[in-house]
């Protein structure tokens, strides 16, 4: 296949330019020799990548065609049910076939799925940028920790308080914050996250400060401790399924539709009678509710909480899960959480580079698939 020459020339020139730019950057530090080597290496690898991309293009087209065909096949109605139950069976059998380490990672994944599904209500459905979600996660976790350690509440007794308190804090943040829009709202939520973190870190008499709270007991059912990994796995699995079902159902009700309408066009939404302020408030409260569940599960699993677990980076991580999977898509968010919990574990072998690799991965993702793994690009159909 002959490629038209202007294309070759322009991409070749581009490679040279990029290479020159980088070698110029390195010139003062490493001398002309290193710069020359860098120049050659970058231009060569750029040319190689171009060549490979041309090779891969027909392959990619075929793949897309195949996916299109698969999508068009009409599945019988019961096939989704079969898929669902098979998946459920696999998830139930999972702890029997793997090492404890994987069960541990699975529990963590489950907790993050709950958190990400909660944040998705605010960011993905309603379109409000929320940078302080870890605050609600922390409130849920500390509520259980304190009720358990100080007042001797069991997990199930404390759970309603965890959920209630995070939901109420969601309201409390939302009432003043929702007067603001876009970037300003993001800054207020960020501030809220920091405030909660600082309170946890400094209110020594209540929260134990940076030392945190230890000795939190696991949940019990009929006097049976659920502290072992396998048993705790099932609690988390049940919680994830409940979260998924409820979020999914609310999404496809008039409340969920109102949220999406606000995200798509706020003025349009108010013109058809949606009280946008009230529904944004609902979104905040409903999203925070799940952070309460995630937090309680987290502290009961770790049997220890400290402010370190609820920093700004934690908020960003949960936000990344939502964005990575595709804003607003429920399966996407689950996959996003799965990737961002499992990937760092897989990359543990290369310790110090794993955050770098993760960061690079996210950047590449945003460049090539900004709508997320499961998101739909406008105009794509």
């Amino acid at each position, binding site marked *: 296949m002959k490629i038209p020459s202007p294309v070759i020339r322009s991409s070749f020139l581009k490679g040279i330019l990029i290479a020159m730019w980088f070698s110029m950057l390195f010139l003062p530090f490493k001398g002309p020799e290193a710069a020359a080597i860098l120049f050659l290496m970058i231009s060569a690898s750029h040319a190689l990548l171009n060549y490979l991309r041309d090779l891969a293009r027909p392959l990619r087209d075929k793949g897309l065609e195949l996916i299109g065909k698969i999508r068009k096949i009409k599945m019988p109605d019961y096939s989704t049910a079969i898929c669902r139950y098979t998946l459920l069976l696999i998830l139930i059998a999972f702890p029997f076939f793997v090492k404890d380490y994987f069960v541990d990672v699975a529990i963590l994944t489950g907790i993050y799925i709950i958190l990400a599904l909660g944040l998705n209500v605010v960011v993905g459905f309603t379109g409000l940028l929320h940078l302080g979600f870890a605050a609600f996660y922390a409130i849920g976790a500390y509520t259980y920790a304190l009720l358990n350690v100080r007042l001797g509440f069991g997990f199930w007794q404390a759970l309603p308080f965890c959920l209630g308190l995070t939901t109420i804090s969601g309201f409390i943040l939302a009432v003043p914050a929702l007067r603001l829009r876009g970037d300003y709202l993001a800054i207020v939520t960020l501030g809220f996250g920091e405030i909660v973190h600082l309170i946890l870190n400094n209110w020594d008499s209540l929260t134990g400060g940076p030392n945190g709270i230890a000795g939190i007991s696991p949940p019990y059912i009929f006097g049976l401790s659920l502290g072992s990994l396998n048993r705790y796995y099932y609690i988390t699995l049940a919680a994830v399924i409940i979260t998924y079902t*409820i979020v999914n*159902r*609310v999404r*496809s*009700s*008039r*409340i*969920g*539709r*109102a949220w*999406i*309408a606000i995200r*798509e*066009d706020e*003025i*349009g*939404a*108010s*013109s*058809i*009678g*949606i*009280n*946008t302020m009230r529904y944004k408030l*609902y979104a905040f409260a*409903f999203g925070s509710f799940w952070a309460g569940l995630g937090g309680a599960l987290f502290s009961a699993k770790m049997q220890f909480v400290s402010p370190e677990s609820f920093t700004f980076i934690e908020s960003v991580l949960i936000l990344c899960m939502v964005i990575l999977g595709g804003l*607003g898509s429920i399966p996407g968010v689950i996959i996003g959480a799965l990737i961002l919990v499992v990937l760092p574990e897989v990359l543990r072998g290369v310790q110090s580079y794993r955050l770098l690799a993760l960061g690079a991965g996210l950047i590449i993702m945003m460049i090539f698939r900004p709508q997320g793994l499961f998101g*739909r690009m*406008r*105009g794509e*159909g």
Partner: protein
Amino acid sequence: MYILDVRDLTKHFEGIRAVEEVSFRLREGSIVSIIGPNGAGKTTLFNCLTGLTRPTKGTVYLSGRDVTGLPPHTIAGLGIARTFQNIRLFKEMTVLENVMVAQHLKTRSGIIDAIVRDSDFLAEERDVREKAVEYLELVGLEGLSDMPSFNLPYGDQRRLEIARALATEPTILLLDEPTAGMNPQETSNVMEIIKRLQRLGKTIVLIEHDMRVVMGISEAIIVLDHGVKIAEGPPDAIRNDPLVIEAYLGREAFA
């Protein structure tokens, strides 16, 4: 009794007089056009009527009730619906969902109903869906239910906005340039739809530049220029009004 009674409506934007003491009254079931050169204050007038902007002065009575300065969602609930000049559809929702969400005020299911999915909830959902299809049929978009609305051609997007506004079951429908960017075929189609809505008992106010539409279907025309109402009357009177010809028609339509 007038269904809409606007008195001395005024809107200033930091010294710019967008709308200046405009008064008019609408009879139930009529079709009225608002015309005027660009920047005459037509859309600002609509925004004041629907609560998107708060008028500086003046009052709006809807069926005798003062609705001035109420928030947009309340006004929508009282029976004024609108479309927008720069289409404001919910782009990532399907055509059907756009009309379903607009029945927000007519439905009551709460969050518990949605989670439990009892028979009442399911019945309401079915009802919402069926009604949405009916509204789509009314504007001729019934075959496109499952298409994401951003994929619709421009003219269809305008018609979908009409269907969405209708789904709020308004008594008054404000259409902001419903035929903008349409070809003659699509335009006469929209005129058909507007007449059909009138037969359903809706009161219709439209902002329109296409004189064929304005002269063809309006019972009365209100002419704005620089925010001031310079004329009001039946199409024939407006056509021959020297002030109007000077301000608007003389320069554009009959040039």
